[in-house]
């Protein structure tokens, strides 16, 4: 926890903040916060979708290939809904595509867990399980948003995530209790992912303000439930170390792992090489 805070303080000098805050003088403080919230939600979803889509034609079963692509599609749809709302809020010539394709690493504000590489099947599924548990709870909470449009997106998302969870959860048990190798792979994934879980429950000031305004949902409220649910599943397979305290963060401030830059350079390549064209 201490480590993270230090890292954030070092990185978020005023100059750096300017890059990632995305402040727009033409928008009121409130709609500025809302805009940042929408883009951040969209970033989380698009980056995870990208990672999941990397499994296409690479999964251990054809059925899993289809399932992972399906989850990727759901998250892509989610990203588009958030970005479209953000683009309308901002007006001008901003579109879902200009948001997705023309911002750099420092302007992307996804939480880091979404951008980590797919590594192996155990890693991808454990991350997915963690996120599925999280999003079922988080999107349920977000359904209560006073912003009708956000509530509607959350309503759709919660249904999807419930379905995703039904798929990811049994995988964790099967892999944890399958062979020595599969268990080792789950444990390895856990060691790494544990460091990135805490960020899911953190909120920058502007998000806290949105919570106060009744627009965003308080991430802290679901930490305990998340801990409980995940620990129950893991301990059923005799795995008991898991700690959701913040260890590595910085995504919302545009401080990423090195992985994101490569992801974006791939994702944005055509839009960057031929700016301003319609595809």
């Amino acid at each position: 926890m201490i480590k993270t805070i230090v890292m954030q303080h070092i990185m978020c000098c005023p100059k750096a903040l300017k890059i990632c805050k995305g402040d727009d003088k033409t928008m009121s403080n409130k709609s500025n916060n809302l805009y940042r919230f929408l883009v951040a939600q969209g970033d989380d979803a698009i980056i995870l979708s990208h990672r999941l889509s990397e499994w296409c034609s690479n999964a251990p079963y054809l059925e899993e290939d289809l399932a992972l692509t399906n989850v990727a599609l759901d998250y892509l749809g989610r990203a588009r809904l958030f970005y479209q709302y953000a683009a309308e809020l901002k007006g001008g010539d901003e579109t879902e595509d200009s948001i997705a394709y023309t911002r750099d690493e420092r302007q992307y504000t996804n939480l880091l867990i979404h951008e980590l590489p797919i590594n192996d099947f155990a890693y991808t599924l454990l991350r997915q399980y963690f996120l599925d548990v999280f999003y079922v709870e988080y999107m349920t909470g977000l359904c209560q948003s006073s912003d009708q449009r956000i509530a509607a997106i959350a309503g759709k998302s919660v249904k999807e995530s419930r379905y995703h969870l039904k798929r990811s959860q049994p995988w964790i048990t099967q892999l944890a209790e399958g062979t020595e190798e599969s268990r080792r792979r789950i444990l390895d994934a856990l060691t790494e992912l544990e460091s990135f879980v805490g960020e899911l429950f953190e909120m920058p000031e502007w998000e806290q303000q949105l919570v106060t305004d009744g627009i965003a949902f308080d991430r802290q409220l679901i930490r305990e439930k998340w801990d409980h649910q995940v620990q129950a599943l893991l301990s059923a397979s005799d795995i008991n170390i898991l700690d959701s305290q913040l260890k590595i963060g910085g995504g919302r401030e545009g401080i990423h792992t090195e992985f994101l830059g490569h992801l974006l350079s791939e994702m944005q390549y055509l839009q960057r090489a031929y700016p301003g064209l319609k595809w």
Partner: protein
Amino acid sequence: MRNTDEHALQAEFDRRVAAEEKIEPTDWMPDDYRKNLIRQMSQHAHSEIIGMQPEGNWITRAPSLRRKAILLAKVQDEGGHGLYLYSATETLGITRSEMIEALQTRKAKYASIFNYPTLTWADIGAVGWLVDGAAIVNQIALQRTSYGPYARAMIRICKEESFHQRQGYELMLEMAKGSPQQKQMAQDALNRFWWPSLMMFGPHDGDSAHSSKSMQWKIKRESNDTLRQRFIDQTVPQIEVLGLEMPDPEIKWNETRGHYDSGEINWDEFYKVINGNGPCNHQRIKHHVKAHQDGEWVREAVRAYRAKQARKKDERAA
């Protein structure tokens, strides 16, 4: 005795095929009919699966979120077609893992078109428009194939294929009407995918190794050249709408035939690619083998887990 039985069964089979009745999995069928179907259907299934690679090649680089969603959904459809066709083929008494083994050891083939690379974004348009377009022409004919599960698979799959073709054409249209660079990419994609698309229909009727038997059994309903001509006739006007140049200078409307004439396919290239020497043959199989091997520990874990659960259940019962 056995001979008389066999004769009677054969006669009944012939009668049913002649009467356009469907042959079903539990029905008696000649060995060669079964073998021929396994060859064709598994090849079809493998094509759907291997085809995910050249298109999947652009999912992470799709230039708009809308296009990305369409492409993801399309590639997922193709995987679904593969799955469905593997199941349909399994009704003939072969397992999916046997089929995959045959693919990976290069005993089974897949559509040669997927041995060509998708080099630019316009290639994704060309694949949807031309490759799915050619596949539809083939598959519509196959809706009347004599084997029931295959015919039903084709009916189901064709519904999705028309969406695939439309999105490809729409992508091409956007680029053909776009910037000069985009138009150039579209033209280049058309030029490169045109000939391989025509090759998808196979050799000329006279040179086709499996054709006559397949036609007789009504596995195949129309000849390679008939289907190829149909594809050319429907596609040339679409090229005109795009405002692109014809990929074959010999394409010309023939009033007497009521069809477009076109140039001769480079059959050397056709056989070269079929025999394993297309630009991507090695890559495609290596990719498939790698994914399969990388996933072995997962499948092993599932087997081990199920065995443990079964043991626990037995212990409880005892």
